[in-house]
């Protein structure tokens, strides 16, 4: 025993690495599918939006809108950085719904983890670290496709991957916290339909929120997606104002931190009985 007894967590071997290794290993089973979809999804969107809707919007803008409500760029260039972050939200959310329910209840793999030196806080941070990796990887691919289509005019656009990761985490934490309070998965599709889908549509991804009635603008500004989209767009188009960027980033960091804290609480309540 002695020499090979498991070492304690340390800076080089942080506690979250143990569950993280497991999630990463599991991913080997499905990585092909997810990589394919993170390349195909933006291509399909860009084709549909670029050839179809974008065309209409652009010619309409030229005809009636000389003030440039889209910031004077073509519709696809306006849309692409928003879509990147909106997808990150969906990845972050999905990873924290059914996989979390599976770990808690269906496969009970979280229970197996906690019978080892892994602590609940390691489990939560391992989960979030894994979500960050997944969102980071998928966003990098997404951005690469956009670049190939010529939709990343500014080199600052690379930083949009970080914004996507932060946005993913700003959703993954709270959603994981919520999932851990649920006895079964009945509420998960509801959360998706009433939470994710409206955000996707009304947080400035497809059109500027200035188009919304005043009260809805307030609501949109309160959600993490709005800030992620705005920051990503500023970076990709190379129109960054430092104070605004800082405000957006702070909001996302705060939300991600709050979500992680909430998840640790609800996971503990659920698992430590």
């Amino acid at each position: 025993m002695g020499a090979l007894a498991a070492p304690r967590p340390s800076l080089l071997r942080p506690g979250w690495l143990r569950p993280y290794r497991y999630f990463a290993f599991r991913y080997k089973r499905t990585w092909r599918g997810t990589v394919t979809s993170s390349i195909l999804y933006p291509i399909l969107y860009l084709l549909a939006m670029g050839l179809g809707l974008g065309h209409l919007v652009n010619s309409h803008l030229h005809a009636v809108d000389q003030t440039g409500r889209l910031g004077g760029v073509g519709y696809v260039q306006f849309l692409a950085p928003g879509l990147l972050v909106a997808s990150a939200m969906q990845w972050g959310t999905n990873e924290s719904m059914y996989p979390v329910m599976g770990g808690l209840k269906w496969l009970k793999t979280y229970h197996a983890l906690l019978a080892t030196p892994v602590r609940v806080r390691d489990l939560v941070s391992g989960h979030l670290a894994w979500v960050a990796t997944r969102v980071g990887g998928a966003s990098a691919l997404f951005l690469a496709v956009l670049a190939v289509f010529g939709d990343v005019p500014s080199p600052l656009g690379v930083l949009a991957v970080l914004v996507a990761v932060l946005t993913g985490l700003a959703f993954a934490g709270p959603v994981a916290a919520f999932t851990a309070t649920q006895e079964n998965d009945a509420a998960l599709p509801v959360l998706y339909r009433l939470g994710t889908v409206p955000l996707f549509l009304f947080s400035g991804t497809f059109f500027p929120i200035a188009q919304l009635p005043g009260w809805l603008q307030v609501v949109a500004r309160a959600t993490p997606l709005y800030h992620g989209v705005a920051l990503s767009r500023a970076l990709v188009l190379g129109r960054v104002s430092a104070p605004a960027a800082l405000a957006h980033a702070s909001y996302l960091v705060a939300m991600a931190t709050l979500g992680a804290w909430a998840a640790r609480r609800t996971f503990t309540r659920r698992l430590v009985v």
Partner: protein
Amino acid sequence: MQHAEARQEDLSASREGRGRPATRDEVVVARHLEKRFGDFVAVDGIDFSVERGEVFGFLGPNGAGKTSTMRMVSCLSPVSGGELSVLGMEPNAHGPEIRRRLGLVPQDDTLDLELSVRDNLYLYGRYFDLPRREVRQRVERLLEFAHLSEKGDEEVDNLSGGMKRRLTIARALISEPELVILDEPTTGLDPQARHLLWDRLYRLKQEGVTLVITTHYMDEAEQLCDRLVVMDKGKIVAAGSPRQLIDTYSTREVAELRFGVDENAAAAERLAELAARVEVLPDRVLLYTDDGDEALRAALGLGLRPEASLVRRSSLEDVFLRLTGRSLVD
């Protein structure tokens, strides 16, 4: 009251009887240990201690509080009251350190059904931060130990219940723990699978691993345990070695007589004189006596004609019946 005194004697007898030195190495010590869920008391102030190298059992029916106790000992569930020390440490303060040196076989399997047998073992080993190469070697050894060498690449979902149980045990051993907790390791398995498991557990004991095992099968407790406690409704109602418990709470033999459904009670009244104790169950009458054949002959001599009868040695089932007035497995 009478039981409580007997229990005290049991415990001291068992310790002296084993001729251990005065400084015993106690791996688990519980004093007035409690587990409450809201107002409900699942474990109601129990005392026990497990010595290094022994197989220690918790025998009791469903709902007795066995799992709640095992989860506290495994540092998965906070102690609600009393004191608990595991491997010399306090679970609420040292959970990860204790779990590092402890293997758990939970009552419900927590295997990843979508991964292979080998990957389940490997990944579990990595939770302990063991080096990759070391884990791989241990995985092969444990596959052999668990009779699963041929199933290494099989998805766990395709294994039989017995194989899953053996895999769970192998998994608990990957960190080479000094204490292994097994919560109902054989529940739901067929007799052959159970015997194979018992054999594996016996080998672990021979290697010096301390085993704590819960069961509601009295034969399992009798076969495996050096010492055990009988639990009912959150309390320990008796403690000792299987032999001591049977000697204390039962007679050497039991004669079982089956009469017609409504005739058992009436027959029991006439049989009262023939045995040290008579128990009436819905389907049979039990005569507790040191000579079962003699009691049976006497019963026939009274003109009673049971539909069926048999004489057997007393078991822990009889101990449980005596202590609680109920059968262990319904």
